């Protein structure tokens, strides 16, 4: 009894330590294993970015499950964390069998590690499948000219939007040429209206200007070279000319005086535009849905749209388009046998008419070749038709640079562009910075 206390205490201390270690190791290993989406059962795990369009994917999963023995299970991942989650799960047993992505740079690292199914053979076996989609869109999602993605959402080209009422008040017409655009800048400045809304705190909105200008000056080839890892692409005169043009536009007061503090994500730029304090806005096609949510009257009757004009002496085809062609389904290479067949069968459902119909009912413009007859069902048929024609007739659809380049380049790309617009980098300084930073 007398000696019991100290001994039991030291035994207790030792066993506590052992238990702590044991528990720690088991907890740690537990962190990294099992979880949902196990691969033993007879179902395929489908991951999708959760937003207003998710209901279209919910419907297609239901339709697919009626026809297939291997069932699809839809996991909706909240938008903010989607790319992080997709990236960290690939290569673990938790990885999905089929997943939503942005094509290009968003999957290029997976391609490098052979983690995705090459869809080329499926296209060969089923030529109708390839023909079902607009070629420029199918191509825009490819990596090294190999197809890994099936278009599964609406197209999102960058469009030059204008405020009809502001134009009417100024007696102005939407720009058809670069000179028109420069003339309009003066017209609106005299009227005390900011010519173009620009969200300078969100550099991806400034990137749209760079993308269109480089394309108009040098054609889609310039960025293709950069994307393929050829750093000399930045030496192309089109890049320097773009940077100089941006400096000139900024100096002219094209974006007003406080664009550096304006945001897009909290609706700063869109409100400015809708309220008529700015006349035009270069933005992705989602601007329509955005305005419809926040300023429904403006979206209905005040919103005008046109294409980005050609530039004198530019080599690029003025029909070229930039933006996000669409989103894609890709199939995990680890999915084998019966499940892989089912997964490929599932992504094919995106080519079907009833899928396109669902997209249109949701306000999206599908990337399928035969969507023309369905566009009349869109809530704004003229807008849908304009977008569809713009994209179908585009010889090239350049994927947004921050999606096309691999993720490691995104921060530097954004920072340098923001510095160019803010006057913190000169045009030549911009070119040098890009050559140095983008690998």
């Amino acid at each position, binding site marked *: 009894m007398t000696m019991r206390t100290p001994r039991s205490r030291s035994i207790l201390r030792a066993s506590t330590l052992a238990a702590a270690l044991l528990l720690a190791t088991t907890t740690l290993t537990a962190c990294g294993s099992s979880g949902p989406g196990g691969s033993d059962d007879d179902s395929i795990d489908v991951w999708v970015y959760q937003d207003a369009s998710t209901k279209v994917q919910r419907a297609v999963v239901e339709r697919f499950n009626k026809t297939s023995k291997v069932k699809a299970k839809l996991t909706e991942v909240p938008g903010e964390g989607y790319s992080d989650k997709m990236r960290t799960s690939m290569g673990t047993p938790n990885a999905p069998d089929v997943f939503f992505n942005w094509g290009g740079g968003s999957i290029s690292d997976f391609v490098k590690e052979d983690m995705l199914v090459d869809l080329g053979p499926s296209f060969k076996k089923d030529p109708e499948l390839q023909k079902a989609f607009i070629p420029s869109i199918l191509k825009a999602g490819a990596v090294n000219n190999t197809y890994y993605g099936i278009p599964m959402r609406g197209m999102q080209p960058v469009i030059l939007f204008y405020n009809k009422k502001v134009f009417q008040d100024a007696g102005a017409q939407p720009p058809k040429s670069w000179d028109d655009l420069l003339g309009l800048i003066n017209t609106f400045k005299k009227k005390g209206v900011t010519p173009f809304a620009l969200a300078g705190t969100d550099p991806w909105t400034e990137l749209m200007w760079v993308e269109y200008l480089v394309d108009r000056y040098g054609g889609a080839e310039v960025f293709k070279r950069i994307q393929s890892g050829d750093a000399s692409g930045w030496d192309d005169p089109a890049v320097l000319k773009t940077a100089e043009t941006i400096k000139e536009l900024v100096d002219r007061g094209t974006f007003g005086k*406080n664009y550096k503090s304006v945001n897009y994500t909290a609706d700063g730029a869109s409100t400015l535009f809708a309220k008529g304090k700015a006349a035009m806005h270069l933005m992705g096609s989602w601007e329509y849905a955005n305005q419809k949510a926040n300023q429904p009257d403006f979206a209905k009757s005040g919103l005008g749209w046109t294409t980005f004009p050609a530039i004198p002496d530019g080599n690029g085809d003025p029909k070229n388009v930039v933006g996000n062609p669409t989103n894609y389904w890709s199939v995990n290479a680890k999915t084998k046998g019966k499940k892989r067949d089912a997964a490929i069968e599932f992504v094919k459902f995106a080519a079907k008419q009833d899928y396109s119909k669902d997209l249109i009912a949701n306000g999206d413009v599908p990337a399928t070749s035969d969507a023309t007859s369905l566009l009349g069902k869109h809530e704004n048929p003229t807008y849908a038709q304009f977008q569809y024609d713009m994209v179908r007739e585009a010889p090239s659809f350049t994927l947004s640079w921050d999606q096309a380049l691999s993720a490691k380049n995104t921060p530097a790309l954004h920072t340098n562009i923001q510095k160019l617009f803010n006057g913190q980098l000169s045009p030549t300084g911009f070119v040098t910075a890009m050559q140095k930073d983008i690998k």
Partner: protein
Amino acid sequence: MAGADSAAADPKGAPGQGAPRGGSGRRAVGRKAAGRKAVGRNAVGRPSAAWALPGVLFFVCFAVAPMLLVGYLAFTDWDGIGSPQWTGTDNWSRLWHDPDMRQAVWLSLLLTVLTWLVQTPIALLLGVWAAGRQRNRAVLSAIFFLPLLASSVALALVWKQLLDPNFGLIAEIGPALGFEDGDLLGDPQGALGAILFVTAWQFIPLHTLIYQGGARAIPRSLYDAAAIDGAGTVRQFFSITLPQLRNTVVTSSVIMVVGALTFFDTVLILTKGGPGTDTSIVPFLMYKNGFQAFDLGYASAVAALLVVVATAVSLLLVRLTGFSAMRSTREGM
């Protein structure tokens, strides 16, 4: 029951047992094992190690293990998929030569110093005031305390709206502050100032609370004695309140400095490190490299450096201020 027992036992003293500082249970053991004072004394005062188990486990799983992993990853090249490639000290030499990193270190230090200079005097004065017995004090203190209750992300989003140059509050008051057109976030100094202001607004309540607690603990008798000697309010503040709050100042400063060094969410939402890289402090640079560029090896090197620096700074603060000596401010009372 136990308390009553020990309270009853204490006055009797049991001289050989030293100062009565334990619970009654152990005392009972000591009494039974008469003559084995050493055993009894060892058993007094500390609960068994098992009590620390949940805390230790939590700390190991969520602090030690990730830190060790970060230490390992800092010597590798890893993009989040595939397996990390050992690259030796590549990340570290890159860190040393990275102009963004230099700027980030400078900005972090600047923000830390400015944070301390802005928040400490305000929190100290508010805290001392809130410790008093004035009218409306409780109501006003409750209002001051509100920002601390909201999530910092929500607060940053609200401030982002207020700082919108066309529709926010800043559009009205910007010109008076010298930011024409409300272009505050687009200006390097303005953006840093905005972060400084929003964090001060958000965290001063916490430090006020710490100072309030500290000031309340100062014995009334000191002030009574000073009053008899003819000291006014100001003299009392400098001669009694401030010296008595010395340890509270250190506590609050360590929290503030380490907080400022590791500050992140307001920067992400309010400025995204911009304009350009002019508000990219070290934690934001870590995020940018880790979760935008997925350059997790390099981001780990930044993180490892941050852990070392923040730990060193807080240890240094504790040492330099003599806080570690655990000397009471009430010696001789």
